[in-house]
């Protein structure tokens, strides 16, 4: 317990540096590569959404303005395809990273996929989901979540699903002449619908549900920037992921996961970037709502 006390910062999340004291140490939740991948993902996803939606909502004045702002439909097309390449890059880099993670820390796929830190949905996730619903309606305590909650896992696999569905249809639309060598021409019509509607689902979901669940929950307001810094205050880990915290404490591996917090200037920069991403995301949501409800034809 004394150890834990020493680790805790004096004032919780918004720690001020004690005068001339030791720097605050925080729990490392994400690796450097994971953080970079998330930032790349944000940039490419926003780019894809903005450029793609100009076409989907071409009947709104907004779309025309945005399209011109992006340098015209051809320029928007280049941006869209470049961002798609980045997105594919992120995806495959993550797969490679997983492979190395397996080699480095787990030794086998089985250990990685079925261990307590697995991203795969498990029976416990289902139990936690039910328990969470009970907690929502005041019928129980907040479940003691582990390293990955079920909604985090859902978001994670949504990317897999999205990459597969949007990516594959996107490729057919990118190379229609090649794909129609063996696919009927009307498949391109189908691909267009799937690509654009799935993209709408992705943007709609990310910019509302994911934003709320992960970054904007009132108890974390104004923003959770763990995914950018890779660090979270230890007491937050203890509160949010008690099961993981306990396991780490029990195994004695907590100390090796602790690092110094970033200086204020870094977190401020990160916050500025995150606010920008949020603003873009919310603008897109508003635009989608406007286009779907008021301008649809």
């Amino acid at each position, binding site marked *: 317990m004394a150890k834990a006390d020493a680790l805790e910062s*004096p*004032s*919780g999340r918004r720690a001020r540096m004690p005068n001339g004291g030791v720097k605050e140490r925080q729990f490392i939740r994400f690796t450097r590569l994971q953080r970079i991948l998330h930032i790349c993902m944000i940039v490419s996803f926003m780019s894809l959404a903005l450029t793609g939606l100009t076409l989907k909502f071409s009947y709104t004045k907004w779309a025309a303005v945005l*399209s011109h702002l992006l340098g015209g439909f051809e320029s928007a097309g280049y941006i869209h395809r470049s961002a798609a390449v980045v997105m594919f890059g992120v995806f495959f880099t993550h797969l490679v990273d997983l492979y190395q993670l397996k080699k480095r820390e787990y030794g086998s796929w089985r250990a990685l996929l079925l261990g307590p830190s697995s991203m795969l949905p498990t029976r416990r996730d289902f139990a936690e989901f039910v328990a969470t619903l009970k907690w929502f309606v005041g019928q129980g305590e907040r479940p003691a979540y582990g390293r990955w909650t079920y909604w985090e896992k859902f978001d994670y696999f949504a990317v897999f699903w999205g990459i597969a569905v949007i990516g594959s249809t996107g490729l057919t639309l990118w190379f229609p002449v090649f794909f129609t060598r063996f696919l009927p021409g009307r498949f391109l*019509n*189908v691909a267009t619908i799937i690509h654009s*509607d799935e993209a709408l689902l992705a943007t709609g979901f990310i910019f509302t549900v994911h934003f709320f669940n992960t970054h904007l929950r009132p108890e974390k307001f104004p923003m959770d920037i763990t995914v950018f810094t890779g660090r979270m205050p230890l007491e937050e880990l203890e509160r949010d992921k008690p099961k993981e915290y306990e396991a780490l404490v029990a195994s004695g591996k907590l100390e090796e996961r602790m690092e110094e917090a970033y200086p204020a200037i870094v977190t401020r920069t990160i916050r500025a970037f995150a606010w920008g991403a949020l603003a873009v995301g919310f603008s897109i949501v508003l635009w989608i709502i406007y286009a779907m409800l008021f301008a649809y034809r």
Partner: protein
Amino acid sequence: MGQLEIDMAEIKIVRRAWRAGLRIIGVPLLAIILSVLFSEPGRAAEPTTDQPGAECLACHGDKSMSTTRAGKTVSLYVDGKKFATSVHGSFGCTGCHADLEGKDLPHDTPLAPVKCGTCHASEQEQHARSLHGKAIARGDPLAPHCVNCHGNHDIYPVKDPRSAVTPMKVPFVCGQCHREGTPVSRNRTIAQDNILENYSESIHGEALLKKGLSVAPTCATCHTPHLILPHTDPASSINRRNIAATCTKCHSQIETVHRKIIRGALWEKQANVLPACVDCHQPHKIRNVFYTQGMADADCLHCHADEKLRRARDGQSMYVNLGEVSHSRHTKVACSQCHSEVNASRVRPCETLTRGVDCTSCHEEVGRQYISSTHGQLNGKNDPNAPTCKECHGTHAVLGKLDPQSPSFPTNVPGLCARCHREGQKAAVRYTGRQHEIIANYTESIHGNGLLKAGLTVTATCTSCHTAHRVLPRTDPESTVNPANVPAMCGRCHHGIEEQFENSIHAKRISGSAKELPVCNDCHTAHAIRRTDEDGFRLEIMDKCGRCHAEIAKTYFDTYHGKVSRLGYTKTAKCYDCHGAHDVLAVTDPRSHLSRANVAATCQKCHAGATRRFAGYLTHATHHDPQKYPFLFYTFWGMTALLLGTCVIGGLHTLLWLPRAFQMRQELRAAEEKAAAELGKSVDKEDPDG
């Protein structure tokens, strides 16, 4: 009808006494006795025996001998001297009045009509066949008999100046009836008007009447003296077939002069295919313009060269700048040729003017066109807004359309029409159609740019489409801008396009459709015609096609081509990039750009390497039609269900979470404040030591 009766009565009175006398039922004896009693006894008593008809002159030699017919006194006097010197003087009275032969005097009345034909058989026969003779046979009271032209007792040889039908007098003999205002001119259908007047001003009339050239042609020279027939009669001397022969009686070498215009060999052989003399030299108006012009102009300029000359009525300047006229198109036209009612015999020749200049006397065809045009029809209704010739062409300074200074020179035409048709001007104000900002639109159009900026005088200007003189609204079937005539009108310049169009599905001949089909201006607009490679045209074409093809245009916007177009970019395929522009055909037509055989090549214009299967892409697909495109319909709704389902579940999850999240936040804040308070205490304690 009443007027006619009065005229006839009049004519009866004017008729020479002898003829009416024959008609009269009884000559009152008293009149004869009185005339004998009051006549000079000596004159009556001195009949010269060598004078033929001395017995008759015993009575008829008395100047006061007269009778009353129809209430008017008619002289029965016969000038014995004139009769004695006339061609018939040696025949005596009974030579003609044969029914008096051996009768006691005074004779019974009326006398039988004199039969000139007894001696002049061929003339009588010709006269009987002529218009005049046939009119007599019909009992036309206006029809002339021998005596009406030749006189009765004073007939002299034609060449004798005393003769009534000597060439100098012929125009007036005929003019008795064929002159404006006579019963004949008013009541009989005669194609020509102002015959005597025109003749007297013509080169023939001037030669005869002014210069006294007795060989100059008179009426009888062309119409013949006795066999006068209408020009429609093939036997007439003035029939088209015979007119050349008639004119060449005098103008015998005229073929050599007219070689430039007419092949001489055909002159008389095929007169029917050549223009007849009168086609160019209007009958009765034949003029020698080179001779009279200088004279006449000088007469006019006597007054009108004065710059201060003003019209008394309204003070308008009547000054004529001769310089303007001499640099104009009408430099060789005399004043009087336009101001045609002037009379050279007056001190002020123009005082006889009753109307303005009538350009149609020379520009007849143009005049006909103008009269049928909207401008002309308004002018016919005395509409003050209606433009006449001079509004566009000017007056004395009129220039040909090839002169760059002329208002009708191509580059000046838009400005000319703009005077009335510019927005806010008088023609634009009364116009109720669909075209607005006509002049502004034209000026910015490809035609306007070509004409006004590039200075291409062959570029279409207002008159190229609307014609210069036959301007009609598009609703008029005769109008060049009527939809039915538009392709042909545009095709005058854009011939190749017209050919394609006439073979396209939009041509009535090909489609056989009863619907209203588009013509050039439905896609290209009328006045604002743009270059087709400009963004504006390429972006508007979908709406143009969509006016008729509403559904197919709407679905176009559901696909990539349409969406990019809607964003305002021209690079993706527009209607005509696939369907063809002027050669658009039904996709079922093997010649169509979209037929089975051609569609891949059409796609390859943009998509290199496109195959038939690539062309299977539905460029007009919509996911709203479950019948036509079920796979799109169900894909769309499947995706939508997935979207809605995910968002609803995610959204509900979040909403349910919110109260707990706020609760957590409050607990957290409370804990934080507590921790901060504790820390503050500890810092306060620590500080003094530090």
